[in-house]
């Protein structure tokens, strides 16, 4: 057995010696990691949906009845030249009617008798490469001659953007708080471990143990606690999300509204976050206690 494996073994034995304390520490760290995981998942979902909105959302520019085909083509060119416009699609009366039919497919009586008197105006459906410029594009389109109205649901879009920003800030805040809590808990556990090993540490010093040698088992102990908590949390949250994902209705996802994203697209982000977090709180938490209570 090399010195390194001996020190790792010592760290592991420390963990077992304080089994109850170790378990409760890991339970709390797991709980904080789970809360953090839930937030990461929420943010992932919100961001993904915001992204969908960004891509899908556009505005509809209604064309005056009197516009000739050349004028329509000219309008289309003008819109296309506006900055951040991704695509312009011409929607004639018939297409508008078909779309409405699709939308009301279970309540077709709404549209009865409208086939010939088509009430749907011709329009351009304009999509953007970034909805943050939606307002600017809207006012540009409004200036174009032959466009009599622009339909653009800016309140929803602004709300979605605001929501995603708030959610991201919230995640950072929650993450910071949980990080501090976890470090505090681990350092407290290591402090108790240092106290309960006081006798050993005393003897070690007299025999001529280097500071490194005395410190390492505690660092190993903290790191194992952090990493184990990370792995347990990852398993729990993965199972929970997979089960939930299978059961949750994909709310309106077919209409391009809110839909949950599959776990396969972001599990590694959770795993990496947990492992980095586990390592960090384990190392940092034990280092704090060693510095304060070991005085080596």
């Amino acid at each position, binding site marked *: 057995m090399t010195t390194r494996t001996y020190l790792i073994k010592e760290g592991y034995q420390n963990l077992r010696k304080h089994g109850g304390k170790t378990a409760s520490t890991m339970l709390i760290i797991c709980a904080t990691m789970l809360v953090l995981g839930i937030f990461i998942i929420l943010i992932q979902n919100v961001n993904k949906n915001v992204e969908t909105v960004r891509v899908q959302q556009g505005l509809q520019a209604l064309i005056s009845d009197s516009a000739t085909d050349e004028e329509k083509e000219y309008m289309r060119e003008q819109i296309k030249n506006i900055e951040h416009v991704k695509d312009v699609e011409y929607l004639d009366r018939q297409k508008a009617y078909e779309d409405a039919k699709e939308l009301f497919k279970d309540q077709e009586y709404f549209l009865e008798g409208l086939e010939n008197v088509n009430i749907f105006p011709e329009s351009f459906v304009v999509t953007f490469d970034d909805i943050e410029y939606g307002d600017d594009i809207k006012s540009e389109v409004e200036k174009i001659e032959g466009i009599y109205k622009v339909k653009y649901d800016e309140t929803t879009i602004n709300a979605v953007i605001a929501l995603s920003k708030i959610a991201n800030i919230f995640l950072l805040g929650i993450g910071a708080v949980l990080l501090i809590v976890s470090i505090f808990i681990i350092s407290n556990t290591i402090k108790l471990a240092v106290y309960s090993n006081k*006798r*050993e540490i005393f*003897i070690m010093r*007299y025999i001529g143990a*280097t500071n490194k040698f005395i410190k390492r088992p505690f660092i190993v102990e903290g790191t194992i606690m952090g990493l184990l908590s990370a792995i347990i949390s990852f398993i729990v949250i993965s199972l929970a999300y997979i089960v939930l994902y299978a059961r949750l209705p994909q709310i309106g996802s077919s209409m391009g509204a809110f839909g949950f994203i599959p776990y396969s697209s972001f599990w590694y982000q959770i795993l990496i976050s947990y492992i980095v977090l586990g390592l960090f709180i384990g190392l940092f938490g034990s280092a704090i206690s060693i510095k304060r209570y070991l005085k080596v």
Partner: protein
Amino acid sequence: MIEFINVEKKYNHDVIALDNINVNIDKGEFAFLVGPSGSGKSTFLKLMIREEEVTSGKILIDNQDIGRLKQKEIPYLRRKIGFVFQDFRLLYDRTVAENIVFALRIIEASEREIRSQTKNVLEMVGLTGKENYYPNQLSGGEQQRVALARALATKPPIIIADEPTGNLDPSTADDIFNTLLEINARGTTVLVVTHAKDIVNKLNKRVIALNHGRIVKDEERGGY
């Protein structure tokens, strides 16, 4: 091997624990350090392992000025000095052999060294066959032997025993001193702090007596 040159130690600037100490203990010597409680014996030992620092003067251990050691070099100084305590200071959740192995791990000995040295020192203190006992299963005298074995395991050139027989009955105390003499006979410098008057008088070894922080007697073949 152990040299104190004009050593003074004050606590809190005015309490004098040791005053102008000049002493030289040669390699392979056996010496007693005696004196009433509060005479400075403990401070003397603490200075030797740099648990405390001198206020003035200097201490040479194995010809090395220990006042010049950097913090991270102190463990290596301590490896030259095997310490034996009155209350044994064993690890009670480990067996006799594991207590010895513990010391050898600290000095990062190799596996082979650990095996052979554990066997050697247990033989030296007469505990062969008790490797797998826990300290609580042993008598006080045997526990002190384990402590001695642990101190010897790292092969230090100096052994310091601080009241090694303070908790033991007289006949067990005799055994411990005999073991210390055997260790000394193999070339290890031994310094024993003790109140065991009879033993000091009987062994007729060097006696350094402290009182109020000063050396009041230093005799080559002295008594208590």
